């Protein structure tokens, strides 16, 4: 795992720690929702388990676990800062 690589949250693997740089969503309501759930620029996300079918994935953010589908995590950009799986 190359550290500090720019990627989408959907590109991460379970165990990754990810820092959010940008939440770039075409749909303003979904953007608002993601921000309200704690996916804010500068925020840190710990990637949890993936569901058996590969989607959705659990993310630990601001002390709560939130499951996102790929079409949502696709819009969250940042970098992987660590992996402690």
């Amino acid at each position, binding site marked *: 795992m190359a550290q500090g690589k720019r990627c989408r949250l959907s590109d991460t693997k379970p165990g990754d720690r990810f820092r959010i740089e940008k939440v770039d969503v075409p749909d*303003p309501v979904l953007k*608002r*929702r993601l921000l*309200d*759930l*704690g996916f804010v620029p500068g925020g840190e996300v710990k990637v949890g388990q993936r569901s058996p079918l590969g989607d959705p994935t659990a993310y630990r953010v*601001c*002390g*709560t676990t939130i499951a996102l589908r790929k079409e949502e995590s696709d819009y969250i950009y940042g970098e992987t800062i660590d992996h402690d799986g």
Partner: protein
Amino acid sequence: MMDKTYTVALMGNPNTGKSTLFNVLTGLRQHTGNWPGKTVTHAEGECRHRGTLYRIVDLPGTYSLYSNSADEEVARDFLLFQRPDVTIVVVDATALERNLNLALQVLEMTDRVIIAINLMDEAKKKGIHINTKKLAAKLGVPVVPISARNREGIDALLDTVDAMAHGRINTNPLSIRYSPEIERGIAKLLPLVKDVMGDTYPARWIALRLLDGDTSLLQALKQPPQPLIKEGNAYACCGSVKSV
């Protein structure tokens, strides 16, 4: 002579112990559970403290008031149209960062807010110390630490509710400054909003929502539960939204 009954709304993120606090305050056995989205519509009960009767309303748990889910609209509409005498925002002491998002949104809508920091016992176990005085000074409203399930801090909370309901507390809620572009938009809209809506509603907040293109709010304002909008002007307000 009948004394006035004051309305107290309980708000907060899912799973912060709102319903536990509601039960402690009202003595009702409303079912509480450990999963989010449980309180679908609001529950009501009564509570008497120092001779005053309070109507306690338990609103659905939400992370926000702006994502336009049914739960969030219930909570938002209650604040906007029922205008409770006191709104208690219940926040989780172990996840303040997440919880203060909603608290700040409520502070933009009303200045009659008390922040109840719940789960103080859990925070203590996790070694989290919260400077409630500093938080109160920053937010500009009273902050009361409680542990609803251990019935700790409830008297202090009710005393604060009592003082606020009877107008003995002056608050100065934190007002968020937005980017110059947004502030210009607010300044432009503010007189129009005040003209149409009067002083009944939080004008700056409505201006912000209009700039955000909140169509759900416009729908709610067009058909409020009571006739609160001056007739004839409602459409002018809606029509001017996009042009600003």
